[in-house]
């Protein structure tokens, strides 16, 4: 019989034990009767010989080896009974814990999904991402890592024996057949990608090696979503045509639902069929990602060594492009998480820290409640010690009780988290990376369980350690109302730590609030009202012929301007406050230095209406007009920041700037890098907070300049046209114009669509979303902390003063007024609060530094915020102490003394 078996059949065992002993007694008695004893005497003798039946039974129970469990069960029953006796206490404690644990669990669920979970491909640990690595050129974000050039990828793939490689690159475009035209994200990928990732298609087949080469029949795989939207989920979609960017493909497969790389591609085409010039050049880096899987039996280190050898071999073979260029493999998960998660990581850990503080306050609160109870139960506990309970046994019982509380609170908390997690994720500013991975799984449950038990242990420790051992007699004899000094010290300790923790959260919330206020009042540099920003692409049939492009854009703008309600419209490639920028190095003389020594500026190519549409003020000179076109002198307009940076106090108008990376055609024809002609600065305009209201002050590149779209050479026009956006100033709320605009833009072929539509106001609000979100959460946490701290102070003071009633009675009998008594209690509270604030300020300083480091736009410590938040806390604490103080002042001295 195993021990749980024995535990399970406890009742049966008890009955048998009883029966066995009864049999013994009766048998013994009947033997004695047979020897001539009087029956009564016989039973007495038999009982004496066996000893006390209860003691024997107890020893037999001990022999079963299930004692500890029975004790546990007994402790649990006892704990439940004591909690039931005081439902108010139980409810407050449970609610406090549920809030603390629930909030912590929500944040951990997000961290688990976003940062900790492995990738959702089979055997993700053997996946790697590959990059080119160069000596010398470094970038603050990507360091010395580069995307692959296609010929280098092909060579590496052919020569590697440790890695199976696949390549893919972003390829957005318009799907025009079947159904309504739609702009989608796409990907060009090699045929190995699906097998390497272990992706199985929903329908049809993947790409074959023979699809993945120039001149093969054009085939495409579509996403599950596109299949539903454009083919109605019909099983006959495989084999049907698809027109993407004006080219016809035959659909051969449907990807599984939810398939994603860094994003969710809708149209997948074979990369080997791309025969554009940049795919053949070893010095071009057209954004190719290379992912690989380690072959069985090889390690990442072996792969690294092999890549280094291949790198040296290629450098010797192609010295012009590959000198100083190597290849590096890194685990895919780490890389993807960094790329996807980026700045979210800091925010997440920050939130976990904040929520951890709330949980700590909750624990302290429950601890002080429990301690107060333990002190009132001191006589009971002393009695039990006197009756033979060991100190360990009592401590164990206390801890059982708090563990039960912790677990019950944890269960409630997990329930809160389960209901709260979806709204929380939906509420995340922008979109939370890997949001689909954020779920309550067993990692989260384990975390919640650990947190619950740990909290239970934390708040149960103090009462457990206080189980009485010495001076039993004293405790038993003394009245219930004597508070031991050590308990009062512990209580003050609790209040002080609660206040300290609340100070940290309040100051953090204050700093965020003050930051948000300051940032919202900043001038973005443009007039954000009634301004619509949207991307659009010209029909692929137009893009095929660069000479027709300028006229097509002009015609499109004219059609937009004719829509009733539109005031003016302009083209622009990079839009302030939105993602995406184009950084170009400049120099003030013809002696241009190395690339990485030049200052950088944000460049935008625009049409002459840009200034008017955006509402940017002109400071000096002029903006562009229709005379600035191909063939006329190349001109630019700079902003005031760049003017100051490049020309300090001189007048920039009429000056020249050299920018070798600008799209121009040199004397030798189509070359990108040898732009030797200078650009003339014709005007200076106001600075725009391009990087958002929060980020612009701290941005690396703040200089801005504009150049006319009309001066972009034909050769670059197809590429530039893919990136263009349109800004429309309206007379009515801009979103009301969306449908008429869509109709006008669609064009004769019906494949010109608007996508990524925003109002400028939406973009401005979004640029502060992170700050607003953090402020809201910290506000909630700080409010919770304040509330809990006040409840804590109220509880402790009520308890401590109620214990002091006799003393207060004596004081009043000796002439103390109600006011004196109130002052006495409030002073006691104020001392605790001040001590807490003193401790908390140190923590608040650390929190302020962290915020400054992690949240854009937060400036160093503001004394005013500190002072305001601390005042708020002190006032709240005094209000919480007021009730117990008043109650103490109304003590009737005669009754108080009689009670003693």
């Amino acid at each position, binding site marked *: 019989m195993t021990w749980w078996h024995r535990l399970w059949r406890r009742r049966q065992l008890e009955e048998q034990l009883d029966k066995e*002993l009864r*049999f013994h007694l009766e*048998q013994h008695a009947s033997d004695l009767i047979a020897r001539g004893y009087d029956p009564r005497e016989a039973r007495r003798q038999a009982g004496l010989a*066996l000893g*006390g039946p209860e*003691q*024997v039974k107890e020893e037999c129970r001990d*022999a079963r080896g299930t004692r500890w469990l029975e004790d546990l069960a007994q402790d649990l029953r006892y704990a439940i009974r004591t909690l039931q006796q005081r439902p108010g206490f139980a409810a407050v404690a449970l609610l406090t814990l549920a809030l603390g644990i629930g909030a912590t669990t929500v944040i951990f669920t997000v961290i688990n999904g976003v940062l900790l979970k492995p990738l959702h491909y089979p055997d993700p640990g053997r996946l790697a991402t590959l990059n080119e690595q160069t000596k010398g050129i470094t970038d603050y974000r990507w360091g010395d890592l580069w995307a692959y050039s296609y010929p280098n990828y092909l060579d590496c793939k052919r020569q590697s024996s440790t890695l199976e490689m696949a390549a893919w690159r972003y390829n957005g475009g318009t799907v025009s057949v079947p159904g309504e035209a739609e702009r989608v994200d796409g990907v060009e990928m090699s045929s190995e990608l699906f097998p390497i990732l272990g992706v199985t298609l929903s329908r049809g087949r993947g790409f074959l090696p023979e699809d993945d080469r120039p001149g093969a029949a054009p085939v495409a795989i579509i996403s599950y979503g596109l299949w539903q939207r454009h083919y109605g989920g019909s099983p006959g979609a495989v084999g049907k045509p698809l027109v993407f960017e004006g080219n016809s493909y035959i659909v051969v497969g449907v990807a599984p639902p939810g398939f994603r790389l860094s994003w969710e591609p809708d149209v997948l085409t074979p990369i080997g069929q791309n025969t554009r010039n940049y795919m053949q050049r070893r010095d071009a880096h057209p954004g190719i990602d290379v992912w690989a899987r380690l072959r069985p039996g090889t390690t990442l280190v072996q792969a690294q060594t092999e890549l280094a050898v291949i790198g040296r071999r290629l450098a010797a073979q192609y010295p012009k492009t590959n000198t100083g260029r190597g290849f590096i493999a890194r685990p895919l998960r780490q890389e993807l998480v960094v790329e996807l998660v980026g700045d979210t990581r800091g925010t997440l850990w920050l939130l976990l820290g904040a929520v951890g503080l709330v949980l700590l306050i909750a624990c302290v609160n429950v601890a002080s409640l429990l301690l107060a109870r333990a002190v009132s139960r001191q006589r009971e506990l002393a009695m039990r010690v006197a009756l033979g309970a060991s100190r360990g046994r009592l401590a164990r019982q206390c801890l059982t009780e708090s563990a039960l509380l912790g677990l019950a609170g944890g269960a409630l908390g997990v329930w809160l988290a389960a209901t709260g997690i979806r709204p929380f994720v939906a509420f995340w500013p922008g979109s939370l990376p890997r949001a689909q991975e954020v779920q309550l799984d067993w990692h989260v449950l384990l975390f919640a369980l650990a947190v619950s038990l740990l909290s239970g242990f934390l708040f149960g420790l103090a009462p457990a350690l206080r189980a009485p051992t010495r001076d039993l007699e004293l405790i038993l004899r003394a009245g219930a109302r004597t508070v031991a000094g050590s308990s009062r010290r512990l209580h003050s300790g609790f209040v002080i730590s609660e206040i300290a923790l609340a100070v940290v959260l309040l100051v953090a919330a204050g700093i965020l609030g003050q930051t948000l206020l300051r940032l919202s009042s900043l001038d973005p540099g443009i007039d954000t009202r009634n301004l619509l920003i949207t991307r659009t692409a010209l029909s692929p049939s137009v893009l095929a012929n660069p000479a027709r492009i300028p006229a097509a854009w002009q015609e499109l703008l004219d059609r937009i301007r004719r829509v009733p309600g539109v005031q003016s419209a302009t083209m622009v490639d990079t839009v302030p406050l939105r993602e995406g920028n184009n950084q170009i190095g400049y120099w003030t003389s013809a002696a241009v230095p190395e690339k990485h020594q030049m200052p950088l500026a944000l460049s935008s190519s625009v049409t002459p209406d840009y200034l008017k549409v955006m509402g940017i003020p002109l400071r000096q000179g002029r903006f562009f007009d229709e005379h600035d076109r191909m063939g006329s002198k190349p001109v630019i307009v700079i902003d005031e920041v760049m003017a100051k940076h490049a020309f300090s106090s001189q007048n920039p108008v009429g000056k020249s700037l050299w920018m070798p990376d600008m799209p121009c055609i040199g004397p030798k024809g189509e070359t990108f890098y040898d732009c030797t002609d200078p650009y003339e600065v014709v005007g200076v305009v106001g600075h725009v907070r391009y990087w958002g209201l929060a980020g612009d002050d701290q941005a690396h590149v703040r200089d801005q300049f504009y150049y006319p779209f009309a001066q972009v050479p034909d050769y670059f026009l197809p590429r530039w046209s893919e990136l263009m956006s349109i800004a429309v100033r309206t007379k009515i709320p801009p979103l009301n114009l969306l449908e008429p605009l869509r109709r006008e833009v669609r064009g004769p072929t019906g494949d010109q669509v608007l996508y990524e539509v925003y109002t400028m106001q939406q973009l401005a609000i979004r640029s502060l979303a992170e700050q607003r979100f953090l402020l809201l959460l910290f506000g909630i946490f700080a409010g919770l902390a304040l509330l809990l701290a006040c409840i804590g102070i109220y509880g402790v003071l009520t308890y401590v003063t109620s214990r002091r009633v006799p003393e207060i009675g004596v004081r009043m009998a000796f002439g103390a007024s109600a006011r004196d008594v109130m002052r006495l209690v409030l002073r006691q509270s104020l001392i605790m609060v001040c001590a807490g604030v003193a401790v908390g300020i140190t923590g608040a300083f650390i929190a302020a530094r962290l915020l400054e480091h992690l949240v854009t736009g937060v400036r160093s410590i503001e004394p005013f915020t500190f002072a305001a938040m601390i005042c708020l806390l002190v006032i709240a604490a005094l209000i919480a102490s007021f009730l117990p103080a008043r109650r103490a002042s109304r003590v009737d001295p005669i009754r108080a003394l009689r009670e003693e």
Partner: protein
Amino acid sequence: MTVKSDLPQGTLDLLVLKVVALGPVHGYAIAQRLEHVSRYVVRVPQGSLYPALHRLENRGLLTADWRETETGREAKFYRLTRKGRAQLEKEAASWERLTEAVGLILRLSERGA
């Protein structure tokens, strides 16, 4: 009245095993037999017999079932398991070695005196 000595630590288990080894037997019979065997030498408190039986049962040295006695009453009969028999042999052997050694020492000291 004869002065009886207390049972040495651990020997109760050995005695119980030995008694049970003679055949299935209930608790009262074990107590009687022990008393009979050791009437004038050692004192076996009946109260500690049952905890010992239960302990041995839990360690898998004894097994028990409910049967009728000759008088037609239900009683719990104990039997030795295979493991119990091995244990009995082991403990009996070590007991004999111990008593032999102790006896040897005692005789030595007598001769030396």
